[in-house]
């Protein structure tokens, strides 16, 4: 608060000026005094509301600290941890920015035809009608406990085994076996159930690696791994680059090179993280490759985590081989193999939070079991799923129909892209395709790719995931998820891309 002192008039002794300047100054002074007294930083009866909760905070509102400023004179805010500080920064990954933008202005054919079309979230919406039908016919019965009482909760209200009930484990074992073509059988006692595949991966990481250790991860990979595997564990992810010329299939020599380079700089590698079926490319690891990987892991004495969450989303003709199958049939050391699975993709139930760690290593299972207290599956959901997964007839119908519908959408979408001169990588699984849009980039490189992504998001208004967010070493590739669309939306998507392509061709020419 500044005091305005009318020195000039006083010094020069001119009365008129004194009055002319003194009165406004006095008024100004009293105005500032009034404002200071009545400025209340927070309302007295309601708690302060959080700042506009955009998921990406561009700016942090510090209402409470401002009040500290006025009341105590101390301006040191109470600190949060270094981990929290880094997490609180605005999310600069295009993967998350795109998701936010699409959810703020979601496309709807009727209500919001100019909205952003979401192709960046690998969700499967193609078979909800089947699940809804099952719910209608079975829900009342499915919620009934083993007791006769209607909707009895006494079986599910109390503490359950934190790593999942045996009933659900058995049901999951059956389901997984069916999903993977019946070639393997899974042991319920080797399962640890978690609230989604996200904590499953993190928990495994906590069990297998110390802070500062590393995992080798073939690229391109699911952007969420950077969060799930690294945030709280302090583990590093070393990319092992795969290229278009190999159809983005991993090579052992690249793996070896990455291993040696990392070891040379003093970082300990604890394992390899595979996604099979791969995300974002959508291809499968062959039996031979899985054997080679197991030999490699044995030679280096490291673990293998195989994220098989898309195993039930196969639409091509290639056969899916789980690492569990290979480990069973050949004489490999099973103690280094761990599988992650979940129901978010194959059964379209991401909201229900159902994931698992499947391991052959008793010590890992023992540790993981204790850690599930931080991420257990809710009991009513466990009960519902036991019912659903045990309905063999329904599961069979679902799997067959799901495969057909994903295949149809895939073929239509890929054909649409081809019509625009955009080629997709060979793939046979997943809820997405991996498209080469390098021809649309103005300057070949990561910057050019991001510029294209930005235009696609803000001008064409489609959200797709750029390869750089997946650590792809070759610019221009984008992941497009097509299972959140209706058939009628595909021409709309293609039209929007075409328009953008034409504008760019025109501006270039």
């Amino acid at each position, binding site marked *: 608060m500044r005091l305005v002192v009318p020195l000039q008039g006083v010094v020069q002794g001119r009365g008129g000026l004194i009055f002319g300047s003194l009165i406004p100054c006095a008024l100004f002074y009293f105005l500032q005094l009034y404002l200071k007294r009545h400025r209340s930083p927070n309302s007295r009866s309601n708690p302060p509301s959080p700042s506009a909760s955009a998921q990406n905070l561009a700016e942090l509102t510090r209402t409470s600290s401002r009040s500290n400023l006025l009341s105590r004179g101390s301006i040191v805010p109470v600190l949060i*941890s270094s981990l929290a500080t880094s997490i609180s920064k605005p999310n600069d990954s295009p993967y998350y920015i795109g998701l936010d933008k699409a959810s703020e202005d979601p496309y709807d054919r009727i209500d919001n035809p100019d909205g952003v079309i979401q192709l960046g979230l690998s969700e499967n919406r193609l078979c909800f009608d089947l699940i809804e039908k099952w719910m209608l016919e079975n829900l009342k019965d499915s919620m009934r406990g083993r007791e006769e009482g209607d909707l009895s909760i006494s079986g599910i209200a109390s503490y359950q085994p934190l790593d999942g009930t045996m009933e659900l484990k058995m049901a999951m074992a059956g389901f997984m076996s069916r999903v993977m073509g019946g070639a393997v059988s899974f042991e319920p006692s080797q399962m640890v159930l978690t609230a989604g595949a996200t904590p499953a991966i993190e928990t495994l990481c906590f069990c297998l690696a110390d802070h500062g250790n590393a995992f080798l991860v073939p690229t391109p990979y699911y952007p969420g791994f950077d969060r799930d595997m690294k945030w709280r564990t302090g583990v590093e992810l070393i990319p092992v680059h795969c290229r278009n010329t190999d159809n983005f299939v991993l090579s052992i020599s690249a793996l070896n090179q990455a291993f040696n380079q990392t070891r040379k700089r003093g970082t300990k590698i604890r394992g390899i993280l595979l996604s099979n079926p791969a995300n974002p490319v959508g291809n499968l690891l062959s039996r031979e490759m899985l054997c080679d990987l197991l030999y490699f892991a044995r030679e280096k004495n490291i673990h293998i985590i195989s994220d098989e969450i898309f195993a039930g989303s196969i639409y091509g003709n290639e056969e899916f081989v789980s690492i569990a199958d290979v480990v069973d049939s050949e004489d490999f050391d099973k103690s280094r193999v761990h599988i992650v699975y979940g129901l978010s993709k194959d059964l379209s139930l991401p909201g229900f939070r159902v994931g698992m760690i499947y391991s052959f290593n008793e010590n890992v299972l023992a540790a993981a079991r204790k850690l599930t207290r931080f991420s257990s599956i809710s009991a*009513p959901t466990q009960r519902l799923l036991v019912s659903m997964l045990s309905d063999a007839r329904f599961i069979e119908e679902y799997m067959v129909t799901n495969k057909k519908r994903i295949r149809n959408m895939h073929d239509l979408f890929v054909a649409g892209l081809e019509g625009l001169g955009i080629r997709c990588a060979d793939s046979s699984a997943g809820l997405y395709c991996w498209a080469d849009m390098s021809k649309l980039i103005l300057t070949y490189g990561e910057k050019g790719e991001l510029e294209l992504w930005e235009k696609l998001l803000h001008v064409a208004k489609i959200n797709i995931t750029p390869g750089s967010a997946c650590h792809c070493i070759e610019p221009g590739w984008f992941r497009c998820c097509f299972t959140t669309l209706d058939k009628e939306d595909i021409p709309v998507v293609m039209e929007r891309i075409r328009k953008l392509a034409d504008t760019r061709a025109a501006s270039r020419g």
Partner: protein
Amino acid sequence: MAIEIEKPGVGLSKVAVSETHGEDSPYFAGWKAYDENPYNESSNPSGVIQMGLAENQVSFDLLEKYLEEHSEASSWGKGAPGFRENALFQDYHGLKSFRQAMANFMEQIRGGRAKFDPDRIVLTAGATAANELLTFILADPGDALLVPTPYYPGFDRDLRWRTGVKIVPIHCDSSNNFQVTPEAMEAAYRCAESMNLKVRGILITNPSNPLGATIQRSVLEQILDFAVNKNIHLVSDEIYSGSTFSSSEFISIAEILETRGYRDSERVHIVYSLSKDLGLPGFRVGTIYSYNDKVVTTARRMSSFTLISSQTQHLLACMLSNREFSENYIKTNRERLTKRYDMIIKGLKNAGIECLKGNAGLFCWMNLSPLLEEPSRESELELWKIILNEVRLNISPGSSCHCSEPGWFRVCFANMSEQTLDIALERIHKFMERRRRN
């Protein structure tokens, strides 16, 4: 059978092999004894009665009645129109309707004396996850949290295991009913400093576990002043706030903040859950309520590892936004817990055993120090073993709660029927008689 040993087996992490999960302590050993020989009224009347598990089973019938009369909570309505959206909903903000219902419920529990903003609620799969998450956010590995003793044994695991954070105890004793004092807080702070540990916060449980008593207003003010003075965080675990025997005796830190005009609130965070008050631990529902924007944002992002099933959120949103149900539940639950408490206190008194004066929770804090051979931890564990093996009751020894005075035990009374509680009290009575005679 030959076992080939070529190389040492593939290794596990330090976290995996550490003992910080604490499952070898007597707190959990007693549970094992119960699991092996559990009491059953008809099939195993001489089995071990579980009095070491703080679970609330006295008000199940109210929940069951609600669910019977409101099938829309367990389903998604006729034709299941909301199902699709619900099944896809994995937004870490959580269902708005559920957060609103939780905020209202928390307000009701506090008799409307504090207001809660649904946008400050972060959902987690249980309070266990909430406490761990807050620790990750408020402290770096190697830092310390001050926790008054005696405290819930699970904290050793939840606050320390994966976070790498340390607990420095604030010692409390029976001379003033185990209340926290400024001197004790100062001493703990100095102790941390002498160990070169940076204190990041103080974590209190109010109502207290294992004491079964609420923290007085003046003490809460002192604790908040201490946190302000040292510029550290204050976490108030209010998981038993709905399990007080009288509605007026519980004072939440939220009320203290309200009377201070929310000055200094950015350092305060409340943990809550439905596991105790609503008797639904299997549902895995916990919350963090923070007055600090940054903490809310980062906690929300980190909650990706511990989301609540959207099915459960939907169910509970229906249940808790039903005013008639929630008001009746809170009132009836309180009455029944009070009745149980009176029953156990009377029964123990008849057996010649005194307890700390309690007014909340699902347990009482029993004083068996007169029975100890000598005032030591070993003596206490000896007595605990006798009670487990001879009397066949699993109760929690104070040492597992880091109590500095030996001889105190936590005894749970809400996780069984009245008949079972009667049997347990009878066994204690007989045990005390035997001891008097010898």
